[in-house]
C-alpha cells in the first residue's frame, strides 16, 4: 500500500446523506474478477444524469469527496473503495461512515476523514461558491483545510498509522503466526470443520 501523509486536490461537494454502496457502485459492476479498472462504475447510475456533479467542470477532476452523513452504508463490497480510488479520489470526508466501508478504505489507502457536520456545511459552501477550490487532508495533523476553513477530523490511531506507513495487514499478522498456531491447538474439539464434507443425505 502506498504511504499517505497529506493529500491536496479539488474538493467535490456531494450534498446527500446515506450514500449507500449500491449508489457508489451498482451491483452489475461487481461481476468483474479484477481489482482495478472500476473508474467507469463509480456512481454509474447518477453519472447518467449530465447535471451530476462529477459530470461538471472542474469537479470532474476532484480527488476529495465531501459527502453527507452515513456515507458507504449497505453492502460490504470493497469494490466501492476500488471505484473511488480508480476514479482518482484519495480521500472522502463525511460526518459519519458505515463501519465496513471505513475499514475497507483503510485497507486500500483511501482516507476516510470524519469531520463534524457543521464544518462540512462550511466546506460545501466554499466549494460551491468557489468551484475548483482545493481541499488538503493532513493525516499527520488530523486536519482538513479548504480555503480559510481548517477543521479537525477523526480517524482511529491504528488506521492512521497504517496509512502513513503504507503497511500491509497480512504481513503484520503473519508475524504473529506462532500465536495463531498455539491458539489453534487450544480450540475445543466440538468446533465444526467444513471438511470432510457432510450433508443431510
Amino acid at each position: 500500500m502506498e504511504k499517505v501523509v497529506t493529500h491536496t486536490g479539488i474538493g467535490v461537494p456531494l450534498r446527500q446523506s446515506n450514500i449507500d454502496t449500491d449508489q457508489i457502485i451498482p451491483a452489475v459492476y461487481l461481476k468483474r474478477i479484477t481489482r482495478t479498472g472500476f473508474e467507469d462504475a463509480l456512481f454509474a447510475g447518477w453519472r447518467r444524469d449530465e447535471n451530476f456533479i462529477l459530470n461538471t467542470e472542474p469537479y470532474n477532476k476532484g480527488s476529495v469527496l465531501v459527502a453527507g452523513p452515513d456515507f458507504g452504508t449497505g453492502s460490504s463490497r470493497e469494490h466501492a473503495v476500488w471505484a473511488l480510488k480508480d476514479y482518482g479520489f484519495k480521500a472522502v470526508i463525511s460526518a459519519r461512515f458505515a463501519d465496513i466501508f471505513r475499514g475497507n478504505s483503510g485497507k486500500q489507502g483511501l482516507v476516510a476523514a470524519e469531520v463534524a457536520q457543521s464544518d462540512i456545511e462550511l466546506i460545501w459552501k466554499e466549494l460551491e461558491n468557489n468551484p475548483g477550490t482545493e481541499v488538503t487532508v493532513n493525516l499527520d495533523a488530523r486536519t482538513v483545510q479548504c480555503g480559510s476553513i481548517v477543521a479537525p477530523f477523526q480517524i482511529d490511531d491504528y488506521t492512521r498509522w497504517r496509512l502513513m506507513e503504507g503497511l500491509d495487514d497480512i504481513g503484520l499478522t503473519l508475524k504473529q503466526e506462532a500465536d495463531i498456531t498455539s491458539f489453534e491447538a487450544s480450540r475445543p474439539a466440538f468446533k465444526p470443520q467444513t471438511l470432510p464434507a457432510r450433508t443431510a443425505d
Partner: protein
Amino acid sequence: MSTMQSPQTLAEKVWNAHVVRHGEGEGEARQPDLIYIDLHLLHEVTSPQAFEGLRLAGRKLRRPDLTIATEDHNTPTLDIDKPIADLTSRTQIFTLRDNCKEFGVRLHSLGDKEQGIVHVVGPQLGLTQPGMTVVCGDSHTSTHGAFGALAFGIGTSEVEHVMATQALSLKPFKTMSINVEGTLKPGVTAKDIILAVIAKIGTGGGQGYVLEYRGSAIRALSMDARMTICNMSIEAGARAGMIAPDETTFEYVKGRPHAPEGDDWDAAVDYWKSLQSDEGARFDNEVFLNADELEPFVTWGTNPGQGVSLSSNVPVPEDFEDENDRKACERALTYMGLTGGTPMKEIRVDTVFLGSCTNSRMEDLRAAAEIVKGREKDPQIRMIVVPGSARVRLEAEAEGLDKIFKDFGAEWRFAGCSMCLGMNPDQLAEGERCASTSNRNFEGRQGKGGRTHLVSPLVAAATAIRGTLASPSDIANTPVSA
C-alpha cells in the same frame, strides 16, 4: 468491550474466547486485537480478488477445513441446467470453481443439493453454532448471530487476510442491547420488529456496535425468525447482531450434518449455556421496544430506516425536523414516485418478491403459502418465489408448498440471491414497484429505476392478493377455494 472478568455481555464473551493476541495500549490508542475466525464463508462475488492476492503473494489458504463456498449472487433461478447466459456472471462463477479446486475449498455449485444463499446454507448444514466467530465477504453475515455467534461482513482485503491467517485484526466493538418485551399480535413478524428497530435508531444508529436482541418477544421466536432479525442488523449500521443461544437454538442445531455428536455435543451444550449476557453486564447503549404495540411495517423510501406502519401514510418532508432528513425525504419521494400523505395501503404494486437471505427459509415460505393457499392472485401482479437454498426448495416441495404457489399464479424458482440485488436476470424494470421480503430498498438495488418496499412474507403474500400493499387482516374476507 472490556476484557475484565466481571459481568460480561454475550458479545464480550465470544470476543474474549477468540483473542489470539491482545492489542497493546489503552483507550483510543489501543491497537486492535487479533481475533481467530472459526468459519469463513465464500461466494463468487467478493472472493476472486482475494484468491488472486494469495496467488500473487505465494501464500496458502491456512484452513481449508474452516472454509466453505457456495454460488449464490450471480446464479440464475431459471433453467439452471443450461449454461449461464450472462458471460460475465459465468466467468465469475467459473473463477470460483477454479479457485476452490486450486485451494482445496469445499464448494456447493449450482445444481448441488446444498447450493444456495451462503447465509442459508451455513446454518442448515449445522456449520453455524453458538459462540463461534463467522465471517464472509457479505454484509448480511450478521444473520449467523441468531445462534449467539459473533458474525460480521468483511471486505475483500479482509477475506484475503482470513484466507492467509484465519484471523483478523479488529478493534473491539461497542455493545447495544435491543430489548423487545411483550407479545407480537397475529400478522406481525420478526421482519416487522427489525424494520421498526431500524426506523427507531436510524441507518447509522448501530454504527460501531454489536446489537444484542433480548426480551420475551425475542425468546419466543424460532431460529428462522431470529435469523431475519440478525440479518438486518447491518441495515441499522451495526457490525453484527446477536441473540443468546437457548433450547430453541440447541434444538435447531442438533442432528444437523455438522452438529457435534456424543460427548462433543454434551461439552458443546455445556459451553453454549454459558453464552448469556451476565446479570449486571453493562451495555454501551440500550433501546426498548414494546412488541404489543408493533404493527406490520413497510418502507416508503430509499433506505431501510425510511419505514412506517402499514396502516399509516407516506410522510411529507415537513414531518422531518433535520434538514438532511427533509431533503432525503424529498429525494426519496421523487425516486419512489410517491406523494406525501398517501395511505401506504393505497400504493399499487407490480411485483412481489419472496426470497433473499432475510426471508427465504421454510418458515417464511410456509407463512406466505398459508395466506395465498386457495386464494386468487391479483392478475396484474407478478410474484416470484425464490427459496434460500436448494435444500429449502426440496423441503418446500416435499410439503407441497410449490404447488400452492404455482396454483396461486406465482413463479417457483431455483435458489439464490435473485432479485434482492439483481445481479442475475431477476430484475425490476425502470419504474416498476416491488413489495420485497429482502433487506435493501436503495435506489436501483433491484434493477435500474426499480422501486422497492421492504415487507414481511405475510405482507408480501397479502399484497399479491390485493394488488396494493396489504396485511393479512386486509384480505381476511377474500374468497378461499378448497
